[in-house]
């Protein structure tokens, strides 16, 4: 830590002075520093040192509440951020695959019905279509039950094709 012990005065002075001047300068510095060593300054009073130490204790004590408040505030802020992030994460995980919203249901209704101004006709078409679909569904169910009892698959395939045809006719309007 003591920089003076590590420096070579002669080398240092030679960087700025002629060699003879440098030697003389080093001698001047050393002798003057010897004079300073021979004439020591007074020492600080013991009471003064005790008072300084007391002042340091006071300064540290005064600093502590502020430090404590800062630390607590920082920890609370960090905890709040963690809680918020965790809550958002849990919410996202719980949502899973979303159910279609009302708008998405509306999009499933054929454009011809949706765009139609004749509400009564559109309602009648929709009711008819719904009835047809239900009927086919019932038939499929009956056939499926019958299949288990030994009926052929062909009838089921025919009915399914019929159902698909109705369905596509419906979507085409």
């Amino acid at each position, binding site marked *: 830590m*003591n920089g*003076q012990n590590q420096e070579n005065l002669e080398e240092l002075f030679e960087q700025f002075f002629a060699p003879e001047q440098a030697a003389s300068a080093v001698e001047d510095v050393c002798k*003057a520093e010897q004079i300073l060593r021979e004439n020591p300054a007074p*020492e600080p009073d013991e009471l003064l040192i005790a008072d*300084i130490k007391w*002042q340091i204790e006071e300064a*540290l004590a005064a600093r502590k509440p502020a430090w404590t408040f800062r630390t607590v505030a920082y920890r609370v802020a960090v905890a709040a951020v963690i809680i918020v992030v965790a809550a958002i994460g849990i919410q996202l995980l719980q949502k899973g695959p979303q159910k279609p919203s009302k708008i998405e249901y509306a999009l499933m209704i054929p454009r011809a019905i949706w765009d139609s101004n004749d509400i009564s006709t559109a309602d009648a078409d929709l009711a008819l279509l719904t009835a047809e679909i239900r009927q086919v569904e019932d038939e499929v169910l009956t056939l499926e039950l019958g299949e288990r009892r030994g009926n052929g698959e062909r009838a089921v395939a025919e009915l399914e094709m019929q159902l698909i045809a109705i369905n596509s006719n419906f979507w085409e309007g």
Partner: protein
Amino acid sequence: MAKSDDLAQIIVGCKKGDSRCLTQIVDMYASRCYAYFYRLTGNRTVSDDLLSELFVKLTEKFSSYKGGSFEGWLFRIASNIFHDYLRGKHRRTKLFDARKTQVELETTEPRRSDTEGVDKLQVQLARLDADTKELIMLRFYSELSFKEIAKVRSEPIGTTLSKLHRGLKRLREMME
């Protein structure tokens, strides 16, 4: 003088606000810092105040110490405190000059207790200009290298060397 490792450990403690470590710093440097202030002011009472101010300021500022020469950092603060004192003294003197009162005489005239035991060195130091005197004291009491002193004073090392050489030569001549 504590070894570098010990000092490093004490400094770490001081940065954490450990009063025991700060007390150790006071024990280690109070004598040198007091001598620095005393040789610059020639007044024990003022030196007492400046030394107290230095260590209280050090306690508050320790977190800003970022490594490097500790003595360099410490004596830079000491030098700033001394300059603040000089500025304050200058302001007070101007104020008193304007009023032309007896107060000026009382404050500028050193008290008997302050002049008691003033050594020959102190008398001769008073004859040097303020900057040279400060440079000599910084060199002698901080124990910093010329390179570090130049850094503390923010001036080229050649300037520091020649100023210090001239000042010490003159002091030597006056003392002999």
